[in-house]
């Protein structure tokens, strides 16, 4: 009997078990920590996506300039906003070789940005998008529904310069990419984390700015 009293599994106090309140408290703390880490992980993933996508845009622009010089041709950079009505919102970048009389031909596979990343259409943050009239596609890209898409574009000349005029607002030619969540949440304000890419119309040089 003595043995059962001191070591028996029925005795909650002596076996060191938890009450329901304790278990609930622990579960609440764990769920709080988990939700906080999920927010943190989301931010880290968005930041990584932004860096990767920003770097890829820079590489594409540099490559477009290089191809224009090496091929002695005009290379057009076409930036397609996500097609209207599409569930997946992806921005696309296409490089097209543009002869004066030829029809444009894509130079390589288009660069499709991650769905979590968007290019701001704000007039201050993306002059290349907001201040350039969208142009009709001429059969290079079609949306899933088969309709021609509109794009914002500019050209690199064979000497490495661009066809971008002096910006009438006295600003530079640039675009700003950021997390889609941040852009949709803070319309008209600059997100904390962004990737701005500037194109020098004079030389075609590409420069990036991060916070």
């Amino acid at each position, binding site marked *: 009997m003595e043995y059962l009293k001191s070591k028996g599994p029925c005795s909650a106090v002596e076996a060191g078990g938890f009450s329901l309140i304790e278990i609930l408290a622990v579960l609440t703390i764990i769920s709080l920590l988990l939700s906080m880490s999920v927010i943190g992980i989301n931010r880290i993933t968005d930041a990584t996506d932004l860096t990767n996508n920003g770097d890829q845009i820079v590489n594409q622009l540099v490559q477009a300039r290089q191809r224009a010089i090496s091929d002695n041709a005009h290379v057009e950079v076409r930036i397609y906003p996500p097609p209207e009505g599409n569930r997946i919102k992806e921005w696309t970048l296409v490089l097209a070789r543009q002869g004066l009389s030829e029809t444009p031909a894509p130079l390589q596979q288009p660069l499709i940005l991650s769905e979590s990343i968007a290019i701001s259409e704000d007039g*201050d*943050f993306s*002059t290349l998008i907001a201040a350039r009239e969208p142009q009709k596609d001429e059969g290079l890209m079609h949306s899933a529904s088969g309709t021609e898409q509109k794009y914002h574009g500019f050209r690199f*000349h064979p*000497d490495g*310069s661009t*066809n971008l*005029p*002096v910006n009438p*607002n*006295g*600003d*530079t030619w*640039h675009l700003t990419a950021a997390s889609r969540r941040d852009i949709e949440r803070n319309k008209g304000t*600059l997100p904390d984390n962004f990737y*701005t890419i*500037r194109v*020098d*119309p*004079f*030389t075609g040089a590409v*420069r990036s*700015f991060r916070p």
Partner: protein
Amino acid sequence: MVILSIIMVAAATILKTTQEVWTTSWERTSQFRDARLAFEQISRNLSQSTLNTYWDYDYSGSQSKAGVPGGYRRDSELHFFTDAASRFMENRKAVTHAVFFQATLGYTRDESYERLDGLLNGLGYFVEYADNEYGKPKFLIAREKGKKSRWRFRLMEFQSPTEFNTVYEADEAGGDSAAKIREWFSAEQIAAYKRPLVNNVIALIISPQLSRVPGTPSSSALRIAPLYRYDSRNASNPDTLNVLPPLVKITLVAIDEAAAIRLEASTNQGSPPRLVSPQWFKEAKNYEKDLKALEQSLTERGLNHRIFSTTVAIRSAKWST
């Protein structure tokens, strides 16, 4: 525990030192590589400078009468100009020498002119002490307002597109002043069409020269620009009027980014540190002495630097001695 802490501290110190050495050497090599590229660009463009001279009737000589020319003279509407920047540029932050000339580079912003490779452009090079706001989007400038700017000496390039090149607007025969003749590189023109070529270039020395005739003193080659001044539209100097210098010696002095950071920390924001004495590079005959003094001064201040120098032959110079 103590041993572990010691090992951790030692590892962190080694890592930090390695990182610093790597960053410094990377900045040094990339800095001087950019300076070399810029130097090659200046040399290439300068060798293509042109005046496109022609022979015209001379009505200005003593032998000419009303409406009857007294002979022929070499004429041109184009311009080659070099001098100390402080003597003619309104930009107070421009240091050492500046050079402005015309070259057929075919640069235009008008797409309908694109296939015309021989279009004339105004070009210029000078060194300016400036902050890093050039080429920054407006919203970033506004965002960083109040923050410290990065002030650096920068080698600037002026390149006016052919449709904005105003060199033909001046007419010295019509009595235009020197200021009017230089209007194609006026402060407004320069502000509109300048861009930084490379950071941390502290001096640009331009010395127009003749080729040295064997048996003559070396100073004889410097007689066309003994004070580093050359103006192809200066009518008071018939030797250089409407003629390009056959040779131009270009010297470029660059420091590395680490030296520039140290300099910035030791000076007030916006006021250029005096690295090149105003007494240096005033007379072409003292070039070697002045360059040695500059080198010595930079070494004494612990500023890592490199000097690039070459003599460029201008192909379209039609010089006869």
